[in-house]
């Protein structure tokens, strides 16, 4: 079974050569596009997504580097 996969040789954190599993993508060309945005159906899901994924602008809390700045 393992022979079906391609392995690549890479360095680990200690610089030792190790074998890792190579690419396992399906062959052929994609048709159309996979619209991940269609997975969000209701208004609540959409707003919640904005507040979490794009929290940098749409969360009520300041975020990341600017959170510290707001707390000073």
């Amino acid at each position: 079974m393992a022979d079906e996969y391609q392995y690549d040789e890479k360095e680990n954190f200690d610089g030792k050569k190790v074998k890792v599993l190579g690419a396992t993508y399906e062959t052929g060309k994609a048709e159309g596009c996979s619209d991940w945005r269609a997975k969000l159906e209701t208004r609540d899901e959409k707003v919640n997504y904005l507040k979490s994924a794009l929290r940098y602008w749409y969360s009520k809390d300041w975020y990341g580097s600017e959170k510290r700045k707001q707390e000073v």
Partner: protein
Amino acid sequence: MPEEKERSIDGATVELIKKAERENISTVFSRADVMKPCPIGVEESCCKICGMGPCRLPRSKKDEGKARVGVCGATIETVVARNFARKIAAGTASHSDHAREVVSTFLKTARGETMGFSIKDEIKLLEVALDFGIEIEGRPMKEIAIELGEKALAEFGKQDGELVYVKKAPLKRQEIWKKYGVTPRGIDREVVEMMHRTHMGVDQDYKHILLQATRTALADGWGGSMISTDLQDIMFGTPVPVLGAINLGVLKEDQVNIIVHGHEPLLPEMLVVASRDPELKQMAIKAGATGINLTGMCCSANEVLMRHGIPSAGNFLQQELALITGAVDLMTVDVQCQMQGLQGVAECFHTKLVTTSDRAMIEGATHIEFHPEKGLDTAKQILKMAIENYPNRRHAVYIPSHSQDMVAGFSHETITYLLGGLFRASYRPLNDNIANGRIRGVAGVVGCNNVRTTHDAAHIAMIKELIKNDVLVLTTGCAAMACGKAGLLTPEAAKEFAGSGLAEVCETIGIPPVLHMGACVDNSRILIAAAAMVKEGGLGDDLSDLPVAGAAPEWMSEKALAIGHYFVASGVFTVFGTTWPTMGSEKVTKHLFEEYEEMFKGMWAFEMDPVKAAHLMIDHIDKKRKALGIDKARDRVLYDMAMRRALD
């Protein structure tokens, strides 16, 4: 006469330049052979803003040390700064007038007054509504959209305050803009004020002129361009990764070939819909073709590629060559970057050139004006005209076989999603991989083609050098198309061309090492992606702290200067190639290349050699990495419980 290989690195382009020469057809390449750039104009040492001139103020060894002034006493610094500023005003006006057309169509669509248009992306509508401070709770989409359209339209005529999108920039950046008084107030206001201040006898201090040029450019990047991108996304869908193909080989001998060329995606979107109409397909078959083949050129191509996977015939310098195949039955043009030479080439063949915007006509071309109220009908009318023209092909068709697959559609929203999925969407993985050094930095390589340099060569040489050195590249416009043709926009390109660190990250996420982010107005997506990197944390407090750089190695349009200047004013080191329009004044050049770094923490540079330019960018990225303290690999420390307890 230059060798063909010096004119382009693209095989299809070289083949068709040869065909044009054999058939004695005038193209941008042949015209450039006989028309050399004006040596005074190239360094902008000429003033023609009043009737007392034109005043020519070239540098000369004979008059070295003498003040160079026009008849009114304007110094060479004033003249060069004015010329530079006016180019930025024109570039900003172009993107922003595009935006105005988009907003107008959006508003009419929201009110139900258009034909064929709709609100496709509710998430983006809510996102932009929140930007504009619009109440979304419990309100229907239509109501939100109308309020958004009205507020977006008001951004153009605003006189005071600041543009809404300014607040999306990092706080520190906003403070810098306030400090120098360059926060844009209203889009049109900044362009008008720029034109006024560069009129004869008004603003005559080059540093002061350049400050208004900065405010005008910011009104483009954080105004007009951003509005275009966002409202187009709402109407046509926010791009997600899609497979497409590029180069003149996408034309099909046995099909009705229509090319959409220009910039505004309004009519092209309707042409996409109409081209799938079974009645029109049947009509094409009756005319002797096997179908309808809709393709794009320049930024119109990028728009329909990003959202529908419509193939791209090529970039700016290929527009006339596409017609020389003899296979193009109709080409539509709307605004920006469409050469008047197209009509002359079209007349050598059976091709119909159709102008579609009320703002842009070409002598000799057919004019079919696009109005969103009857958008789909107009699109069908144009397709019918193309089908009827198919039997009129009178020359042997020659389509070069070159065509390359590519993946486009990397909006900043999609990048966020790809980095963490629906539940952990975040820029954290990107920032972490920059901090750990797998990704050295990020570069935005954008812009046009320029016939004064080998077509596509500088883009590809620069980008290959960047990705080889683990710099992730974001690209738009004609630069993105050059990358597509060179095979850099596929995930497989990471393994072949990228350094080991970048390749590893690309392989893990499943993305190419060069991300196609759209048309030239979509450079605003790069601004937002960079702002998200800052806000995520760990890479400083401002865009200028990030290990990033920008470039337009083959620029030619005034829009490119506006884009470059808003990147500089946003804190990004930006390198242009081919030519630089302030060489007439050492003081103005020094101000933009050195003193701007003190003021805006971003500055311009000029380097004709694309590989050397890439290394200027890498050096800058390394400088920023050092300042952030992420320039050296650190030992991994596994914390035990005692160490954890010792943490505050």
